[in-house]
């Protein structure tokens, strides 16, 4: 049995991960801990998870791995705690809110001899995997550019800290850029060389503290350019939380993937109004399964802290570009 724990319920994905762990025959969810006692008690009860009084208590349960779902700015402290206890880590995205924290986390896990996986579930999305196969078979030929979106509702409807700069590290750019940076790196097999970004706080719900919309234009080392729309531009009435799309312009044609477009449209007689019910494969399940498999097989996971670090470098550059109005070159390693 692979013994797993959840550190913090701050991120709303924790709720999904509980079910994902339970669906894996040789994994066991030993329990959870949360520095917010009220929140911990609430979710532990709602999800039927055993709650340990402190993170130290949880880590003392001979765990193989933990899933860190704290507020973004608190990832580092929990990852370092787990690495000291010799427990493998799956950390919610973004890996951290500063590069200093991200580098410290990579180092701590290296020192502790544990692997650090970052929660980038789109690598396990069935439609996105299908596109990767098309690209690997070179059916589109050379790729020239990509247009991608990861738009969503303002996440404060689930948790207030998403619009608290101190805890989230930023707004829409911090929240919705990493999935696409990672997907594009994965598709293009190249690293980001330059970042241009413009942000807006005109979309509501930013609390005056964080940006609520952003457009980013990346240029990769291989010359391909790509835009990312990370805006919280989906109103409360939108039929789903949001979505993720990637359009690829290639030598032999064009292709567009809409990762969450496998759904039924429901028109109720009454509220909550029109909504989409998703029936596609669960990408999170593939991600949690990979975390467990990597532990079982004593190997590094396919998506690591380094990938999380690369995505964060782009975010940091995007904030700088939005501030100065100039493109920012990334230092290539």
């Amino acid at each position: 049995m692979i013994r797993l724990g959840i550190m913090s319920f701050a991120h709303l994905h924790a709720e999904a991960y509980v079910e994902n762990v339970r669906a894996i025959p040789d994994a066991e969810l030993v329990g959870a801990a949360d520095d917010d006692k009220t929140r911990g008690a609430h979710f532990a009860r709602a999800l039927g998870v055993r709650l340990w009084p402190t993170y130290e208590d949880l880590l003392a349960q001979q765990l193989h791995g933990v899933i860190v779902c704290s507020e973004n700015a608190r990832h580092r402290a929990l990852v370092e705690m787990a690495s000291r206890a010799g427990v493998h880590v799956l950390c919610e995205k973004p890996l951290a809110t500063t590069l200093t924290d991200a580098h410290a986390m990579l180092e701590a896990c290296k020192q502790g001899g544990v692997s650090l996986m970052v929660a980038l579930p789109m690598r396990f999305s069935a439609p996105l995997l299908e596109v990767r196969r098309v690209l690997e078979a070179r059916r589109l030929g050379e790729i020239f550019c990509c247009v991608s979106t990861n738009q969503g509702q303002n996440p404060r409807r689930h948790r207030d800290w998403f619009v608290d700069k101190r805890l989230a590290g930023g707004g829409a750019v911090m929240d919705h850029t990493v999935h696409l940076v990672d997907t594009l790196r994965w598709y293009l097999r190249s690293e980001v060389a330059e970042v241009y970004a413009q942000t807006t706080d005109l979309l509501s719900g930013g609390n005056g503290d964080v940006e609520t919309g952003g457009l980013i234009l990346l240029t990769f080392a291989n010359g391909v350019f790509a835009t990312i729309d990370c805006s919280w531009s989906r109103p409360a009435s939108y039929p789903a939380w949001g979505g993720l799309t990637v359009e690829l312009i290639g030598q032999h044609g064009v292709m567009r993937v809409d990762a969450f477009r496998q759904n039924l449209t429901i028109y109720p007689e009454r509220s909550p109004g029109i909504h989409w019910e998703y029936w596609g494969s669960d990408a999170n399940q593939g991600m949690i399964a990979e975390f467990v498999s990597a532990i079982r097989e004593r190997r590094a996971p396919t998506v690591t802290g380094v990938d999380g670090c690369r995505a964060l470098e782009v975010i940091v550059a995007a904030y700088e570009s939005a501030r100065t109005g100039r493109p920012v070159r990334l230092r290539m390693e």
Partner: protein
Amino acid sequence: MRVAIVGTGLMGGVHAEAWSHTGARIAAFVGTAGAGGDALAGTYAARFVTDLDAVLADVDVVDICTPTHLHAEFTLRAAAAAKHVICEKPIALTVGEGRRMIAACRTAGVRLLVAHVLRFFPEYRLAREMTARGDIGAPAVLRLSRCTFRPRKTDNWYVDPERSGGMMLDLMVHDIDYARWVAGDVVRVFAKAAQTSGRPDEADHALAILTHRGGAISHLEGSWAYPPPIFQTRFEIAGSAGLIEFPGPAPAAIEMHLRGGEGSNHEVQLPRSPLHESPYATQLRAFHEALTSGTDPPVSAEDGLAAVRIARAAIESARRGQPVELDASGEKPP
């Protein structure tokens, strides 16, 4: 009101059909010999001539449907004869030409109406009206996409930057004007362009980010890189209190369009939707009304010039790899 249509290609024919829904009469078509202009003239019982001067005395309005690089010359000739001018978009190949056209028409006391037909497409017009009256709050993030295939005319002036200005000036300019109409003046442009086929310097797929003075941002995609016969337009306007979405074709989890089965004989495609009146007819009725009763049309020559300025900034940005700043009046700093 009597009209001379200059240019007997795709847009000359489209405008002729549109004029037939107004009270105006097409007196003449002006074109090059042997390009089908006489047949077009026959259809509308009009004269066909190869020189505008031969019919200027006989008309009130000159409607210019030529390739872009000829807009300035014909406008100046029409203005010199004190004739009103209707001009296809973009108003001109360069900002300087556009400025001269506006000045000449002002001096001559004639109107200069620029055919930014997107402002007459009902889906675009409705979305702009709803935004302007505050239905979705302040516009914040716009996405405008216009993707079709590379024009394939025998004399393919569209893909010749010397005659059309290239894809961004010919195609993306529609959405540039629309973004400005919805979200206001543009102060910064950053663009990248790719070339998937054709000769060098013929960028056929471009992405641009516009920063509007009021704080909104726009994402523009223009493409001549899609396989025929596709012409897809999509847009959305996200505002502080709601979202308007025109999603284009029914979205699927995966769509793929490969070149090879060249699925149509179209040289150039226009977007189409079943309507009682084509947007081109709506546009010319509005222009006819503006000319007969002196009202302001929903798009001014200055709007047309601003769109060229932004398109030129996007082209320059893509070439230099740097953002281009536009000053308060929309002018580039010296």
